[in-house]
């Protein structure tokens, strides 16, 4: 199955900009399903972590108020083309996914 994580990296000097979108419904638990007329149970990412060459550099704690298919961007120093990036997320139902990639 294709990864839920779509990652783009851009490097200038030694500063990498990370941009990503995660495919995830981010259900709040308040939304009513049009067909069943019932509330859709809450289902959202709680944690994402980012490792740069196996070292944790950035992590997130999220609520259900982060938008559907979450978008995130951040920047970090001391990086170069070919460095390893690992992204891992975990949601409230215990689902998780991760992606390993290289800075390009």
């Amino acid at each position, binding site marked *: 199955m294709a990864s839920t994580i779509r990652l783009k990296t851009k490097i200038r000097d030694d500063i990498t900009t990370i941009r990503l979108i995660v495919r995830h419904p981010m259900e709040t638990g308040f939304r009513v399903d049009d067909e069943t007329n019932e509330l859709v149970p809450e289902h959202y990412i709680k944690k994402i972590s980012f490792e740069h060459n196996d070292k944790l550099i*950035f992590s*997130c*704690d999220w609520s259900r108020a982060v938008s559907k298919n979450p*978008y995130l*961007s951040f*920047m*970090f120093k001391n990086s170069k083309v070919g460095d390893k990036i690992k992204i*891992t997320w975990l949601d409230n139902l215990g689902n998780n996914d991760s992606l390993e990639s290289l800075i390009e």
Partner: protein
Amino acid sequence: MLRRSFLKILTSSTVLLFSGLFTPIRLFAEWKDSAFSAKDIDTAIGNYFPNQNIEKTDQIKIEIYDEVENGAVVPVKVKTDLKMVKSITIFADKNPNPLIANFDLTSACIGFVSTRIKVSEPSNVIIIVNANDVLYMAKKFVIVHENGCG
């Protein structure tokens, strides 16, 4: 020969088992339920940053539209020149649960984060930055026309 392949299977399955078990547990640590489930802004901030003073600052730049049609997708960009930024936390004061997201930065990171959030009604988007263990706050009002939390 049989023993060798058996060991191989054992080792690889152990690795699989461990990677599957430990990643989520490590990730799950410290998600502050008492702050995320708080229903008003003062409780949310107080539970996330217990017994800490928060200073107002103009050194946090919040980029957010003044007015957004659909509250389900409100882009927010935060930039700060404050040194040694350890965390950036986003709240919307009128949301059913005002604490939206926290980002933990390490010393390698630039004081910057960009994301998209849900806002239920016209609200102050409040940003709290921990810079060298001092908390700073800035806010910006956003008008939303359609509830983004439904």
